[in-house]
Structures are given as structure tokens and as C-alpha cells.
């Protein structure tokens, strides 16, 4: 019983027990026990994951579980990484959930028995997906994850009608994803000895290119939709905002990673890397997702929907890394492939940390004010100092600026793309610069998005009574945020904690050596010139800041600061309505990207009856549709509705029509029998 299987078994048992506790315990104790249970199983998962990444594998076969296919569990380094990330997110959200479920003044109670029982099962399913080692087990855990997350997404269906439609979108798109993965993996199984990954691995190397291509593309559709890849991302900005915030934190920070896990597992591990058109497809879809996702986030005003689109963007960046890794691997350049894969995996870890923090602080805002629209928030710094600090830290990390966590992984990604130019042939020469441009535009827009979210949402003066009366959230939520915040800071300043292990895993996936050499202070790239020291950057900044403050104290006057009114051009005190809201902040960006976004704006002016020169009221409404949905999904939905209406004519009710079906088919059958004697 090596540590991996011990810890994994522990995580499963604790998870199951807390699910039972969630179902049976009375209300006050319920969410507390479930929260502790999830955190404990999270810790166990992290231990198992880290041990697996250190090379201690584990495998277990239970043939009589899951009728007709049996359950096979196998933990390797790649699975261990995602297990650890899921465990870490579970720890933070477990602690956070204890307070959040009580619903708060404006919040909504989500501590019913069904929700509290499903939450640990959802975490459990997410932990089992990376360790499944046969097609049957993988699909079982994948669908359990889909089912439990669906039940959690619709937890607040009584409060808002949008929750039910979000649940519908989510259920249908996960089912579409499942069918795509099912077809892909079963085509693979039909060319292999049996359903276990080991057999698939053996068969994967001598599949015909067309079959391998079919397997890769169909599984890419399924996994891409789970990772929020652009053409199949429609459920993400709907399901995340409508779900309770601890659930959307789990979904955004842990569940979408499993989409990337699937692509890496099938693409690299089972099929052993493929021709470079696969990886060009992944890279271009990743770039498209990144730019489109962050563009929608930059222009959106709903805080949680903004974070949902930002998840789609970050997964786009990860897919760029994975695509680049595949491209380099297929053109034979191992270390660069390892570097790109390490960048992608580090970005998954960073994204898990800061996205958990962001969704938790957004949840804390919803808990305190009951509102998600940035235009109605503002001035939360006064009432909720700790949540504001947490969101600030998360925003700094998310916008990839130096002392933040994402800067390190985006730096690695850019280094991989830049040094990849000469290596990967003509097609790469065209794609690499565009990929760098996409990453850069994404980074720029991410800065704009999070300046807007933080500045408009938390600073200045409150723009609604709820925001004015906001009060800090209960200590358990703050503790949850503290855990995630600590993770962000650690990842930002001390990448040595995770990067060596991730480098080893990345090297293992593309079977090249360790791509990065990490000392306490600096990250040095192996056989590629490039080094970065996030810690030294931070120290330089702090020293500079201290020097500036000291200089200011020395040279400036000793007189105490005087409070004064803001400059109001002499027109009397400024009211909160004069502030820049999210809509106005994003208006220049929306105007610049108008042909991509095509926001619908309508301004209607109501005049006084007496004379049309006097304006009584001006109403401005703006809706930013998701153009991909309009261009791609609406025709499909219309076709389905048309098919439904046409189908209705098949059963008009006349008994003669029904008997006629039988008569003509029997005659046709007899004629066929005669003809084909």
C-alpha cells in the first residue's frame, strides 16, 4: 500500500463519508462537516498527487464493479499532477463552502441535503477522472462528474429563471461532449486488444493515420468543450455565473483542467503524439479561444460571467502551450516540447490558484450584496477590506503582471513560442508569430479586464444600496480565500515549489529531459538562453518602493495631510452616479473591436409632451451577444425546432395512417424478399 494508493483511498473514503453526512446531518452541522470533509479529502488527494508525480505509480483492477466493463485505476505522473491540482482547489473551496452555503443576507441558502451531498461526490468524481485507466472507468467518472456538476449548477433554480436555462445548456453540451469522446475512444478500442489504457497505448502506435486522426479529432471535440474551447464554449459563461460560487470555483479551477488532461492523455500518451496538423489545430483553436474569451470578458459587466470567459481565455493559453508542445514534438525538438508543455502545466496550476481566489471573492461579494453586475457594485473596499484585498491579489495574478503568478507561466510560454521559430518548419514560422501576438493581445486585454473588474467593482464609491451596506463575509470564507491567496503568492514568488515536479511531468509526457532548471531564486531554461527571477523582481520592487517613500519623507514637508473634496468643476458635490461604470470603462474597447463584438446598443430618449426640445429621460441599454453562439448555435437550434415541427406530422392521430405505415413496410419487405432471393 504505497502512499499514492493509500492517500487516494483515504480521499475516496473521506469524500464518500462527507457525502453521507451531507445527506443525513441536520442543517447547521451539515455544511460545516461537508466543508471539512472536502478539505480533508483534498489534502489526501494532494498528497497522492505529489507522491505520484514523484514517480510512485499505483494500479488497481476491480472487475466486478461497473457491469460489463470493470473498473481499472492507474495513477501515473500526468494523472498525479491533475489529482494534486483538484485536491488543492478542493481544500480551498471546502473551507470556503462552509460559510458560503448559509446564504448570507442577500445570498441564497444552498445548504439543502441534495446540494450538500452532491458537492463531495463532485469533488470525488473530479479526483477519479485523472486516475481512471480504462475507457469504461474514464467514461464512468467523466459522466459522474457531469451529473454531479449539473445537480450543483441548478442548485439555485428557484431563485432565478436563468439558472434552469443554464442547466439545460450545460446538460446538453456535456452530453454532446460525452458522445464525441465515447465515439472517439470506442473507435480506438475497436482497433485495440481491450479497453484498458495499457492496451490502447500498445495499439496507439500502429494505428492508420486516418483512424488516429478520427480518434484525435472526436476526442478533441469532447475534451475541448469541457475545457471551454471556443466553438464549444457556450455553456461556460452560462453555467459558471448561475452556479453557487464555491461550485463555480471548483468548476472553473479544477473541472476545465480535466478537458486539457483528456487532450494530453489521448494525444500524447495513448496515440504517442501525431502529425503536426493535429497540434496546429489545437494551437489555433487555443489562440482563438484566448482572444475571443478575453475580449468578451473585457466587455462584459457581470462579474462571474467575466470570470467564466476569463477561464475560457486561460484554457486557450494552456491549449496554445499544448499545441506548441505537440508541434515541437512532431518535428523532433524534445526539449522545446518539454518547455512548452511545462509552461502549459504551470499555467494550469497558476490558473487553478488565482481563479479559485477570484471566484471565492466574487462569491463573497454576491454573499454580501446579492448582486453580480459591476455597474451596481463599487465602494466595497470600505465594507469588505479583506475580500477587496483577496480580489486585488487574484486580479494581479490573473493579469500576468510581474509579482503575479500567471506572469511566470506566460513568460515560459512566450519563451517556448519564441525559441520555437527556427525549429518547427514553415507552417510553424507563420503560426508562431501569430501565436505570440495572440498571447500578447490576450495579456493586454486581461490587464484591461481586471483593472475594470477591480477598479470599478471594488474601489471608488458604492453605486447601489446593497453595495453601500455590504459587510465582510464570515471567517470561514475569509479562511478559504486566505488558502487560495497563499497559494497564489507562493506560486508567484517561489516557483521552485512546483516547477521542478511539473518539468519532470512535462518531460515525461513528451519523453524529453527536464526542460527547466530551477534554483531558489531563478528559473533557467535548459539548453535555451533565457532566465527569470520572480523573487528578485519582487525584491527590487519592494526596495524601490521603500527608497521612494523614504525619499519622499526626507524631502517633503512635515505638514499633516488634509482631506479635501474631489475636483467637481465647481458644480457641487459629485454623486456616485457620475462614476465610470464597467459599461463606460469598456466602451472604448468595444468601439475598437466593434466588428468582432457587434454589441447591440439602443438609446431611447423620452421628451416632455410640451416640447420635443426638453428631454425628460435618456435610457441606454447595451447587450453584448456571443457572436459565435449567434452564428453557430442558433442555426442548429432552429434546425432542431424545424425537425421537431416536421416530426409532429408523423403522428397525426389517424389509425389509417398508422396501419398504412405497417402495410407499406410489410409490402416493401416482401418485395425485397422476392427480389433478393
Amino acid at each position, binding site marked *: 500500500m504505497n502512499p499514492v494508493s493509500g492517500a487516494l483511498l483515504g480521499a475516496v473514503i473521506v469524500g464518500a463519508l462527507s457525502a453521507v453526512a451531507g445527506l443525513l446531518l441536520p442543517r447547521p452541522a451539515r455544511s460545516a462537516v461537508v466543508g471539512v470533509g472536502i478539505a480533508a479529502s483534498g489534502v489526501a488527494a494532494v498528497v497522492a498527487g505529489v507522491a505520484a508525480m514523484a514517480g510512485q505509480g499505483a494500479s488497481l483492477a476491480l472487475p466486478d464493479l461497473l457491469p460489463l466493463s470493470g473498473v481499472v485505476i492507474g495513477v501515473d505522473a500526468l494523472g498525479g499532477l491533475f489529482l494534486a491540482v483538484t485536491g488543492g482547489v478542493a481544500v480551498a473551496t471546502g473551507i470556503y463552502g462552509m460559510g458560503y452555503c448559509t446564504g448570507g443576507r442577500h445570498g441564497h441558502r444552498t445548504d439543502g441535503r441534495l446540494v450538500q451531498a452532491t458537492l463531495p461526490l463532485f469533488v470525488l468524481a473530479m479526483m477519479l477522472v485523472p486516475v481512471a485507466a480504462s475507457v469504461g472507468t474514464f467514461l464512468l467518472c467523466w459522466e459522474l462528474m457531469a451529473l454531479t456538476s449539473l445537480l450543483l449548477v441548478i442548485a439555485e433554480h428557484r431563485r432565478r429563471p436563468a439558472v434552469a436555462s443554464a442547466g439545460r445548456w450545460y446538460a446538453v453540451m456535456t452530453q454532446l461532449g460525452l458522445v464525441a469522446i465515447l465515439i472517439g475512444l470506442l473507435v480506438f478500442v475497436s482497433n485495440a486488444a481491450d479497453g484498458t489504457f495499457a492496451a490502447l497505448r500498445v495499439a496507439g502506435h500502429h494505428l492508420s493515420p486516418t483512424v488516429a486522426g478520427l480518434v484525435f479529432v472526436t476526442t478533441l471535440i469532447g475534451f475541448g468543450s469541457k475545457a471551454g474551447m471556443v466553438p464549444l464554449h457556450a455553456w461556460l459563461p452560462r453555467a459558471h455565473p448561475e452556479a453557487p460560487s464555491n461550485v463555480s470555483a471548483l468548476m472553473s479551477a479544477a473541472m476545465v483542467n480535466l478537458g486539457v488532461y483528456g487532450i494530453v492523455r489521448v494525444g500524447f500518451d495513448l496515440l504517442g503524439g501525431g502529425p503536426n496538423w493535429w497540434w496546429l489545430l489545437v494551437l489555433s483553436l487555443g489562440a482563438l479561444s484566448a482572444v475571443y474569451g478575453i475580449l468578451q470578458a473585457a466587455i462584459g459587466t457581470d462579474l462571474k460571467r467575466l470570470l467564466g470567459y476569463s477561464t475560457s481565455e486561460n484554457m486557450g493559453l494552456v491549449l496554445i502551450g499544448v499545441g506548441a508542445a505537440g508541434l515541437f514534438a512532431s518535428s523532433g525538438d524534445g526539449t522545446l516540447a518539454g518547455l512548452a508543455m511545462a509552461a502549459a502545466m504551470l499555467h494550469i496550476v497558476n490558473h487553478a490558484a488565482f481563479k479559485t481566489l477570484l471566484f471565492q471573492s466574487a462569491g463573497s461579494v454576491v454573499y454580501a450584496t446579492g448582486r453580480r453586475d459591476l455597474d451596481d457594485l463599487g465602494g466595497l473596499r470600505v465594507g469588505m477590506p479583506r475580500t477587496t484585498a483577496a480580489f486585488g491579489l487574484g486580479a494581479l495574478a490573473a493579469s500576468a503582471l510581474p509579482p503575479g503568478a500567471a506572469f511566470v507561466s506566460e513568460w515560459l510560454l512566450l519563451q517556448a513560442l519564441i525559441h520555437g521559430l527556427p525549429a518547427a518548419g514553415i507552417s510553424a514560422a507563420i503560426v508562431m*508569430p501569430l501565436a*505570440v501576438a495572440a498571447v*500578447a493581445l490576450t495579456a493586454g486585454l486581461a490587464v484591461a479586464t481586471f483593472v475594470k473588474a477591480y*477598479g470599478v467593482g471594488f474601489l471608488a464609491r458604492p453605486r447601489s444600496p446593497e453595495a453601500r451596506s455590504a459587510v465582510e463575509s464570515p471567517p470561514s470564507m475569509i479562511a478559504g480565500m486566505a488558502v487560495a491567496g497563499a497559494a497564489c503568492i507562493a506560486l508567484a514568488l517561489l516557483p521552485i515549489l512546483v516547477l521542478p515536479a511539473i518539468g519532470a511531468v512535462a518531460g515525461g509526457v513528451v519523453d524529453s529531459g527536464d526542460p527547466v532548471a530551477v534554483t531558489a531564486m531563478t528559473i533557467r531554461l535548459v539548453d535555451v*538562453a533565457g532566465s527569470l527571477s520572480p523573487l528578485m523582481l519582487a525584491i*527590487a520592487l519592494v526596495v524601490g518602493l521603500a527608497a521612494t517613500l523614504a525619499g519622499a519623507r526626507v524631502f517633503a514637508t512635515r505638514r499633516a495631510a488634509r482631506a479635501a473634496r474631489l475636483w467637481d468643476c465647481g458644480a457641487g458635490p459629485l454623486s456616485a452616479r457620475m462614476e*465610470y461604470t464597467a459599461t*463606460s470603462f*469598456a466602451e472604448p474597447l468595444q468601439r*475598437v473591436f466593434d466588428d468582432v463584438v457587434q454589441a447591440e446598443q439602443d438609446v431611447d430618449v423620452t421628451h416632455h409632451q410640451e416640447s420635443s426640445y426638453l428631454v425628460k429621460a435618456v435610457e441606454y441599454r447595451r447587450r453584448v451577444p456571443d457572436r459565435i453562439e449567434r452564428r453557430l448555435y442558433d442555426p442548429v437550434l432552429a434546425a432542431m425546432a424545424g425537425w421537431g415541427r416536421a416530426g409532429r406530422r408523423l403522428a397525426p392521430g389517424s389509425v389509417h395512417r398508422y396501419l398504412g405505415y405497417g402495410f407499406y413496410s410489410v409490402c416493401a419487405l416482401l418485395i425485397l424478399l422476392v427480389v433478393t432471393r
Partner: protein
Amino acid sequence: MSLFGTVGIILQLLIVVALSPLLIGLMRQIRALMEGRAGPGIGQPWRDLRKLMRKQPITPRGTTEVFRFAPPLLVATCLAVAAAAPFVTTASELDPVADLFAVVALLTLGTVALALAGLDTGTAFGGMGASRETTIIALVEPTLLVAIFALSVPVGSTNLGAIVTSSLDDPGQVFSPVSLLAAVALIVVIIAETGRLPVDNPSTHLELTMVHEAMVLEYSGPDLAMVELASSMRLTVFLGLLANLFVPWGIATTGAPLVIAAAVLAFVAKVALLGACLAVGEVFLAKLRLFRVPELLAGSFVLGLLAVAASFFLA
């Protein structure tokens, strides 16, 4: 910490802090002379700073720590870049920090702090300035990174010291089309980042046109002094980077005091020359409408892409 490294850092810090207001003074003086005015003299910025330092600090009602700590953070970022970048010496101690991406990201951090401060005031001016500034940053990033990409291809690394030493060793590389295209792209980026004329008019307070000024409207006294110092230091740092990446001669590679002194002089001369050209250029340029700036940036982005393509096909 080798002696040569620390001396280099201290010298660079001194130059940037002390001389950058003079650079602004020089540029204003040149513009004044070109426009037939007498001009306040090169030392005027320092006199303004001294005046501001002596005024009573004011904290507007309803603002938070973000508003108070933005100016020192802005100055700190400039100091950090000044310490790390190879202005006077190539072998700076903070070499791992001196990565081009890191330097650019640090400067962006400063701008973000200022934008947040603008938003924190809650006035229309602050919001407008922040919104326009972040839009410009978002559009400048692709050009900046693609230009860096182009510069790094012949050298094989994005480390500033490496780029400078490699262009020192092989002068032909400087005049290749790659670095020329990259230089033009970088010049447009620098104008946009530091808020010079075609993109933003630094000396105006007209709501329709101001970007940088709108964010700092609420600052006064020592805070305003820090902001003014920081913007001058940013200009010096950017021009210094431009100078050393494309005209690296005169930079000290060995520890001899004489060589260092020559390097200092060379650096000051180069930055002053670039500042003068910029000032002369500004006299003849009018401010672009805000929504024509993306076209300018798109043009520079295409130049950057051509630089990268050139570096691949021609190399």
C-alpha cells in the same frame, strides 16, 4: 555582488533619477525655441518638483490606499528597471531580472497602478483616463512583444544584456532590416506608452484629449511630484532602452573607471539626442483622435510582424 556590477547599478540609478527631469526640461526648451518662445530653461522641471515637494499633501475624500500608494509604486517600477537594464554597464547584478518581457511587464505594472488610482477617485476624469490608458496598453502589447520577438531571434535570447553584447560583437546585425523594422515599431510603442504627442498630449488638460493627465488630476503636492518624476523617468528609461538596443556603442563592458565614465557620457548624450529628436518631431505633429490610435498601433504591429518574418526568411 561584483564591484563593477554595484557601481553600474548605483550610477544608473543616479543618472536616471537626477537627469530625467532635465531631459524633460531640455525637450520643452527645444520646443519653445522651435516655436519662437524663450522657454523656462532646462532646470524648470526640478524647480517645479521642489515647489511641489513643499506643498501640503492632500488626500481626496473617499479614496483608498490604492490612490495613496500608486505614485510611489510607479516610481519604484522605474527604479527597478533602471537598476536592471544595461544602460551604463552590461554585467548588471540583477541580470536574471533584465529580461525584456520582465522589464516591459514592470513598466505596465506602473501604468496599471496609476489607472487603478484614477478609478479609485471615482471622478469622471479618473475613470475616462483609466479607460483610455488600459485600452491603449491592451493594443500596444502585441506590437511590443512581437518587436521583442524579432529582436530575440538573431540573438536566441530575450535577455537585455545578451542582446546588447551580441549587437556589440556583430555591428552588421544592427543595420539589418530586422532591427530597423523593430526599431520603428518600438518607437511608435514608446510614444504610446509614455503618452507623447501623436497618441496623447502631455501638456493639456482638455477632457476630450487627455489620457495620462486625466488619471493624475486629483494628485497634488508630494504625490504629484512623484508622479511627474516617474513619468520623466519612464521616458528616460524607454529612450535608454531604445538607444542601447539599437545603438549599443559606448556601453561599458569592463570595470575600468575611465570606461565607465565614457559609458555614462555616451548614454547621456544618446538619450539627450533621442529626446531632442522626439521634441522636434512633436512640434510638427498634432494629436490623433483617440479612435485613430488603433490604426497607428495596427501599423506598428504589422511592422513588428514583418520584422519577425524578415528575421526568419532572411537569417
